[in-house]
Each structure stands twice: as C-alpha cells, then as structure tokens.
C-alpha cells in the first residue's frame, strides 16, 4: 500500500427545500480515474427536526455552494487533493442522483437542533472516480447542517 494523504473539510449548508430526500450536501470526486476513500463524517444539525442519511451519488447535481479544499485541508499539509474532491452544499437547484439504498443514518441528530453525530467508517467507503457520497434529509422538513467529511487518497 502506498502513502495515503488524509484530508478533511467542513461547511454549513443553506436550508434545504421542505421535501423528503432533499440533499444537504455531498463530497464529490470529479477525478477521471482516481478513487478516494471516505473514513469519517460528522453532522451537526442547526435547524430541522429530521434524520439525515448518506448514500452514493452518480451525478453531482447543481449545489448552492461549493468548498474547494486546498493544501490546508491536508492533515500533513503536504499537497492539495489530487482528486480535486469538492464539498457541495445545499440548497441545490438540481439534486444529485442517489444510487441504491442509503448506507447509514445520523439518528442522534434527528430531533434536537445542535446535536452532533460523528460516524467513523473503519476501513472507509471507496468513492470511485466521477461519483460521490451524498447526504439527504429523510422527511419533508427544511434543514441546515454543519457537515464535515474526512477522506484518504
């Protein structure tokens, strides 16, 4: 196994539509060939009394805002992410395309604004090139979140 660089980035979403399965954010891997591996995600609810789930996405959609990680997001501060991974945030004008059932849910954040839940993913969830990991509300409650994602590449 070669050297792995670990990155993290966090951002605050704008409020989602009050529509079930609206996206709050996503880590998108735009690289043509290179995969990345998500190892951790943290969700802090600021408004909205609904659970949030994570699932794979196959199109990026059109996010309301995007944070572009740079060398400062490298835990070793050695190199900007080669994948060009991006943190997209609500409100989306066009949602990403969810692929398959949700992978896990942030249930502790369901009912109380300000609750924080972190999920460590062990060996990680590989995100192939040209795909992403999206985060969506379960029920029709407009929601904002602080979303942070940690990944290796």
């Amino acid at each position: 196994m070669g050297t792995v660089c670990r990155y993290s980035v966090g951002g605050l979403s704008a409020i989602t539509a009050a529509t079930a399965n609206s996206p709050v954010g996503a880590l998108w891997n735009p690289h043509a060939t290179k995969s990345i591996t998500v190892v951790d995600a943290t969700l802090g609810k600021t408004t909205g009394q609904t659970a949030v789930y994570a699932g794979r996405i196959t199109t990026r959609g059109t996010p309301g805002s995007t944070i572009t990680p740079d060398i400062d997001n490298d835990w070793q501060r050695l190199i900007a992410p080669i994948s060009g991974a991006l943190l997209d945030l609500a409100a989306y004008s066009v949602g990403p395309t969810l692929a398959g059932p949700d992978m896990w849910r942030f249930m502790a954040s369901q009912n109380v604004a300000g609750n924080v839940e972190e999920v460590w993913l062990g060996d990680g969830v590989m995100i192939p090139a040209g795909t992403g990991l999206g985060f969506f509300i379960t029920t029709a409650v407009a929601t904002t979140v602080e979303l942070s994602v940690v990944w290796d590449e």
Partner: protein
Amino acid sequence: MWNPHATMDLTVDEVHWFHTVGTVDNPGLVRTTTRGTQTLTVTPDIDNHDERLLAHITGAVLDLTYSAQPTIAGPYLQRINLPAAVASGFIWVFPLGIRIPAGTGLAIATPVAVVLQPADITFVWHE
C-alpha cells in the same frame, strides 16, 4: 494552539471543546499562519507531558483570547454546531494526526457570524 518553533513540527491528535454557557455556536477547526495578539495564554510545561519526562521542545502554547485575530488559512478542516446547553461539546479525534508546521497554528474559530461561546478547551499533541 500555536507552534512557535523555527523548524520543528508538531502533530495534533485531539481537540476538546465544551461549553461553559448555554448558548449555541458553530466552532470549526482551521489552520492559522500568524499568531495574532493573544490576551490570555497557557504555556505548557513538563507537567503537560503524559510521562512527565520533558517539557515540550516546540514551545507550543494555547492562546485563548485575542485583541488581534490570527490569520486563517484555507477552508475549515472540521465544523460542528452545538446546542444551547452548558457542557454541550465535542471531542475531535484525528487518528493520523494533523501536522502543524513550525511557525503556524491550529485554531478553533467561528466560520459564521455567530459569537463563539466561552468553553473549556483541550489540545492533545505529540512532537
């Protein structure tokens, strides 16, 4: 956490943040490239070494309040939102550690226009 050493890096393993007042805030972790002007500083010594063998060589310090802010570098590494409750808080754990190059720092700051509330703060690092 500011690393004032001219050449030696340090690596942050954990950051703890727990409210002492019952007001919401949005703490985030971000790198800094200048120290700013701190008005309260904790200077660790040999008693902060977990085996009490040696004071830390970097001279790293914990700055707590400022009259001039540090310079923030790059997007935030982590962000959370905390509820309006005393003792609400969070522990960030970094299994591979976040390297803080010589002459730079790692700050807890508010990325949005919400006042960062008083809190008990702990940094764990190795060097």
